[in-house]
């Protein structure tokens, strides 16, 4: 009987420690000005605070990105989270967009460009998407700080560039979302 109890306690302890390692962090609270986003794919939803406009508005011309700036404060080795970025197409036909992660040459004051070798921390699972005219599309962006990352106490900026590849003219336009990452001390 004693052996059974010891085994039971051991198994329970192991299960509790191991289960949530890949779950995006969330504070679980519901404060004013915040909302939970619907799950993206099979991933659990992330609890994100929204500042500014709470609703994604449509565009009547051009294209754009909802999420001018994203801040992640206090990420640590082993942390991973999913943040949606919304692409808006206000143009007169369906458009093919390509998203890419960029290290800025002129980051915000007090921040450094996220080093090139760490750009893989920001993963765009769908780098190419078609957005119907007048529509929008939510792209999941996964940020992961690897277990063995040696980047404590840093403030870094990274950008997500959105290009409309269906533009044919010599002069083309693109938009960027600025992401600020602060790692735990």
């Amino acid at each position, binding site marked *: 009987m004693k052996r059974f109890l010891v085994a039971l306690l051991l198994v329970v302890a192991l299960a509790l420690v191991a289960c949530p390692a890949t779950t995006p962090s969330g504070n679980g609270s519901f404060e004013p000005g915040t909302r939970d986003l619907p799950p993206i794919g099979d991933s659990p939803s992330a609890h994100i605070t929204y500042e500014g*406009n709470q609703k994604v508005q449509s565009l009547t011309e051009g294209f754009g990105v909802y999420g001018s700036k994203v801040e992640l404060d206090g990420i640590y080795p082993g942390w991973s989270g999913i943040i949606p970025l919304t692409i808006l197409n206000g143009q007169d036909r369906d458009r093919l967009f390509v998203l890419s992660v960029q290290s800025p040459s002129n980051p915000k004051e007090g921040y450094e460009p996220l080093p090139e070798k760490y750009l893989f921390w920001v993963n765009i699972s769908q780098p190419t998407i078609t957005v119907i005219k007048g529509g929008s599309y939510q792209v999941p962006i996964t940020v992961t700080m690897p277990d063995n990352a040696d980047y404590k106490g840093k403030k870094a900026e990274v950008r997500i560039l959105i290009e409309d590849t269906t533009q044919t003219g010599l002069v083309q336009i693109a*938009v960027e979302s600025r992401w600020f990452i602060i790692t735990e001390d």
Partner: protein
Amino acid sequence: MKKKLLAVALALAIAVGALFPAVALAANPEVGITVYGDIIAITNSQDTWAVGHVTAGGAAVYFSADGSADPDYSLITNTGNQAVDIQIQGTDLEGGDYDWTLGAAAGDKVYQLYANTEGAPTVYDVEVKSSSYVDLTTNLAKAGAYDWSMEFTPPTVFDAADDGGAKTGTVTLVARLHT
């Protein structure tokens, strides 16, 4: 009997772990995620430019309807809801027998491209580079507009007999939140 009890305990433990992940999450520091729900978007009124036939060391050609200087030819409009910075970047010209490199000054198979500063329409002083984005205008307000154009200077040297054919490239304007 013991084996059965052990199996039940194992299943129970897994179920507890799956149902109450927050128990373990609580040990992790909290990460604050904030999304600023603003839209970054711009439009640009003119996107095509056929420079036409050029000669080595020839006169500059302008981004306009007829190739003459027209500093207000194209109009960038901020259609988002926050002030933006707009940067510009060019590319080398490809096609024909030799590519032409984008440089700070025209040279041997090197062409030059400058954009103008609004408010100083006769001055084309924004050097367009292929290696990086450079500022075209900053802090363009919501619903604000910016007139602009470009000045193309052909290479001073190229062999027209050997290097015929059309060349193409792109100029990209990128908008991002002004901070």
